[in-house]
């Protein structure tokens, strides 16, 4: 179990009502499960794809600036003081 800082952005921040929070989780999947528990249906409806129980298309989760697809996806292990970012669809220039 690691204590990490979870950062929320834009429309995800609107649901959580905060910029960031500290959470304990061993990996990304457990972290998302805890977020679903804490923020309930509004969070799940916006962020989670009910078919896969994973993030919806174009939502992005990064651990220390690296997206989880390049790590071990939802099984990515977390360490103390990791920064986990949860982005809604955003990009461009």
């Amino acid at each position: 179990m690691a204590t990490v800082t979870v950062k929320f952005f834009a429309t995800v921040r609107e649901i959580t009502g905060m910029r960031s929070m500290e959470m304990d989780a061993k990996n990304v999947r457990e972290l998302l499960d805890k977020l679903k528990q804490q923020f309930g249906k509004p969070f799940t409806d916006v962020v989670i794809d009910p078919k896969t129980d994973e993030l919806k298309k174009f939502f992005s989760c990064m651990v220390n600036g690296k997206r989880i697809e390049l790590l071990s996806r939802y099984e990515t292990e977390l360490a103390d003081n990791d920064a986990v970012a949860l982005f809604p669809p955003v990009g461009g220039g």
Partner: protein
Amino acid sequence: MIQGVGGKVIWVDLTKGKIEKRPIEKKLVEKYLLGAGYLSKVLFDSIPTGIDPLSPENVIGFATGLLTASMFPQSSRHVVAALSPLTDVWGESHAAGFWGPELKLAGYDAIFFTGASLDPVYLNINDSTVELLSADDVWGRDVFETDDILRERHGKRARLIYIGQAGENLVRFAAVMNDRDRASARSGLGAVMGSKKLKAICVRGTGRIEVADPKKYMDTMDEFYRRMLANPFTPGRAKYGTTNLVEMMQHIGRLPSYNMRQGVFDGYEKISGETITEKYLVKPRSDWCCLQRCARYTSVKEGPYKYEGGSPEYETQSALGSRCGNDNLESVLFGHHLANQYGMDTISLGGTISWAMEAWDEGLLTAEDTDGIDLSWGNHASIVKLIKMIAFREGFGDVLAEGSARAAGKIGRGTEKFVMTVKKQEIAGQEPRAQKSMGLAAVTAARGADHLYAFPVLDEAGFDDEIKERFGEEYLPEMAERLNPKYKGIMVKECEDFMVVVESLGLCKYGTQIPPEFYYEDVALAMKVHNGLEFTRGDLQIIGERIVNLNRLFNVKRGVTRADDNLPDRLTKEGAPLGPSKGEVVELDQMLDEYYLKRGWDNETGIPYASTLKRLGLVEEASGMEIPD
């Protein structure tokens, strides 16, 4: 016959005051489409080499796309092009709004201006009436005043393109503005209008656009609307525009800060889109048929930066904010407003001021150079003061009005190494050490440093599924990794080819590239039902390649080679000092080698091979040039 277009092109000889209407040439459209492609060909043939871009010999063109004013989501766009006074090579810029659709409704697809007028003029178009009128009473006025006066005179439904004082004063990064706060900002094309004493183009069109297959057209557009509205990007884009990119870019170390010394900025939350939305947003706005709705109005209610008007987007937040070490958001908002008012590109504006700030920080510029203005990082009062001085070329503003590359050439003393440009145009808001594809895109773009010519955003947050669909699974995972240079040459080449097609249709990159909702097959279907033109995906890819190669030939004729496709040493030799991309450099040579190979260009010179030009039907255009076998 092509449907869904105006059908006519206007040529204006400003020296003689002569106006001519010509029919649109179908053969040219079949080879280059309209919009950016059409201007590429006509101006390639019309602009002589060896001329001063601010002389009467330059030709400036304005065009709509084949799908401008259709119901395709985000189909409002027009394009402006000429020889750039900032880069001395191909200059091109685009904007959304309502001017392009209005031009098409008046029955025209493009306008070209040759020569120069002795006295200020504007072109007034009211359906079949096309006339040059005196601009004496608006010359010297800003964009908002000009808009008020000319719409009072020609009716509130008239739509306008214009320049502010920056264009009149030949600021080399002056914008062509439209619809008050929309800008064809890059390449300094506002200065070309200024050099021709052309203040504005006022358009009122009451005609109709006939589409090729009304039933299939409505069905297709209905489906496209549903797809666009259902796309997960759409709600956030409509709420935040592009302003919420600041926090994401900070998180991946791609937010240009302190003149691109680094890609992270301590004050990022203060200039973020979330903060703008919470404290300063008046309301979002939409251009013609735009479902992304990234434009918006903002206001500052009191204090020295009080204003109400168009809101900055991400590029301006980074250019006047983090790039200048400035976390005073109200000054960023107001600075953007001033840039619109005077008509300037905020990217080059912020890039030039931040060059001066770094030179000041290094002790290479002093108060003696700057008329006593303190250029310490983050001095927002100085930034705001300089914006007006640049637009009016007052004092040190006259030096900065030349852009950072020329300003450094004039000042010397080692300030040249802080110039963050490609081909003399300031690099946009993508710190390329944190996204390698953007570094390559900046050097291969025809108009000098530019993120939009290729707009290779598929690796930004890593769109694996779209990369698989558009390029093939064999390129994963490397192509989706923003720090990995592998396959970025292939990605940038393919993105350029698609983006120039999009710009030739009058569509937006939002909806085609990010979110990557519509691709070749979709736009081909739209062209069939709207224009009655049958193109396959392969046809359109060839047209895209042809336009990019013609843009390259335009530049090669003016001396551009591989040596010019280069980034500042800071980005290729010095590792990013801080943040999530710490230690990264842009592996430019590796990516360029791959890009040239994929393009069919000579690896040493960067000039297209004869075989490439033959395949694309560009042999005649290259005649008289030294082309490698």
